[in-house]
């Protein structure tokens, strides 16, 4: 018998601190698998965001920096300019990337900064206890939109992938989901592409991963996957929005 699935080598042995069923775990693993497969563990520098995944550095066995909330793309820029032959990626939540860090991600993309952003969109502020995010769906209830997000006053959920794809510096932008095994496979492929785009020096790459926050959505993990599929995907269509590599 061969081992066909095991813990990636780029991960530490530490147990995740995440809530049961939280997608961060799946996505952490996918990133580690891509690092393993590309054999870049020793050449990669990751940036942890401020969000539930701030402790990413406890789980990935690579060099890492921890950014101020939203500023991971700026850190990545600083690192990549100093070490252009390393692989540099950010891992960011939707509050981090789509709210406070809007300017940093837009300009990293506009500059064609040769880095990769792993963007975990769970439509909520997980770490701070479930407040509305810019990505929160219309009608979705959160601790700061208890009666459901009203677009009239709280605005419309923002589609970062579509927006960033308008920028010339963006080389690869795609949106995937992790709500079932088939999509997890696709998500991994997208991550691999994004890292390859960086390796080839083509410019900015980002993968937006639709994901769950069972705790703050107030749903069971399995219900969360369903909610994601039925509510998030219609508003956040999956697919590639930019691919300079053309593969």
């Amino acid at each position, binding site marked *: 018998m061969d081992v066909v699935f095991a813990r990636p080598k780029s991960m530490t042995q530490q147990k995740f601190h995440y809530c049961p069923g939280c997608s961060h775990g799946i996505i952490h693993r996918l990133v580690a698998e891509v690092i393993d497969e590309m054999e870049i563990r020793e*050449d990669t520098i990751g940036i942890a965001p401020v969000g539930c995944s701030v402790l990413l550095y406890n789980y990935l066995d690579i*060099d*890492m920096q921890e950014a101020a909330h939203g*500023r991971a793309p700026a850190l990545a820029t600083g690192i990549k300019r*100093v070490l252009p032959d390393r692989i540099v990626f950010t891992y960011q939540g939707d509050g981090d990337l789509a709210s406070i860090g809007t*300017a940093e991600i837009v300009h990293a993309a506009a500059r064609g900064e040769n880095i990769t952003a792993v963007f975990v969109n769970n439509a909520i502020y997980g770490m701070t206890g479930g407040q509305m995010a810019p990505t929160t769906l219309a009608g979705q209830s959160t601790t700061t939109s208890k009666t459901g997000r009203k677009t009239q006053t709280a605005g419309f959920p923002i589609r970062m992938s579509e927006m960033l794809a308008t920028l010339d510096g963006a080389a690869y932008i795609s949106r995937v989901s992790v709500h079932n095994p088939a999509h997890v496979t696709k998500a991994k492929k997208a991550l691999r592409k994004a890292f390859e785009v960086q390796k080839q020096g083509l410019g900015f790459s980002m993968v937006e991963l639709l994901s769950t926050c069972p705790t703050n959505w107030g749903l069971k993990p399995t219900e969360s996957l369903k909610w994601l599929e039925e509510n998030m995907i219609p508003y956040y269509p999956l697919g590639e929005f930019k691919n300079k590599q053309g593969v």
Partner: protein
Amino acid sequence: MKTLMKGNEALGEAAVRAGCRYFFGYPITPQNELPEYLSLRLPEVGGVYLQAESEIAAINMVFGAAGAGARVMTSSSGPGISLKQEGISFLVGAELPCVIVNIMRGGPGLGGIQPGQADYFQATRGGGHGDYRTIVLAPGSVQEMVDFTYWAFELAEKYRNPVLILGDGVLGQMMEPVIFPPEPDLDKIDKPWATTGCRGRQRNIIKSLYLDPEELEEHNKKLQEKFGLIQQEVNRAEKYQAEDAEIVLVAYGISARVSMAAVDAAREEGIKAGLVRPITLWPFPEEILRVSLPKAKKLLVVEMSAGQMVEDVKLAVCGRLPVHFYGRTGGMLPSAKEILAKIKVLGGGASGRSIR
């Protein structure tokens, strides 16, 4: 050979010679000549000049680059430095070395673009959150803009802490002759903590989060010990005519230059005036004020602010000498004449009475 250079440009050239290869910044008057100079100069030496989308992005790029082991700098003025405060707190928290230049202008708010010194509190106490300190150097001439830039990088790396160079519009804009010291040997510098990819070693993590309060307190203790060490090892001031001075001016940067002229003028009139010019603003050179002014009867602090360093002077002398203040704000420079007048109002060095 001496060359004539603008303070901003001389600082830029000094940074390059001190081994700085990365600059991230955002335009703001009156420091623009510095990034402009480096935008041409850094690529010549294989470095990178990058204009960030904002001061916040710039300071965080500095964070990334410093963490990657580079000598790196940013510069700004007033509003831009305020925007960097969160980042500076993070840099200190993560113990990353870098140099931050503030060419001060008048505030508050948008204020104006003429020279000022009202960011002293922000620089010396840290305008950000948490217990932290940055070393603050206050040049008083274009030559010192050069010398202190070398020094700043050295201190930053020695203590793994950001160092601020606190200049102002005059120092940035004026030209004076400068000599560039020999370039330091950077090969000696080892940064085993840098995140460069973990080839052949255990991975490195650069962070400032300690969710467990006991760990965070431990971390803070370590930082405080470092700050204590810096206080012992780094503090500098210049004395001018201070030995027999009865009234001692205390001023830094360009205010000190003007005060020096005022001291000259006072001496010409027979008033025993002198000057102490703090060079490190944090650590504040308390000792020199405390112990080395044998004849001093009173102190007069001169600042281009409503009175900020005056607190450090008071803390230093702790009631043993009366501390007076003369300040101009909003981009106005004090004049030697005005200061002299103030000296006379205070009765020179005489306690209580006018001296003539």
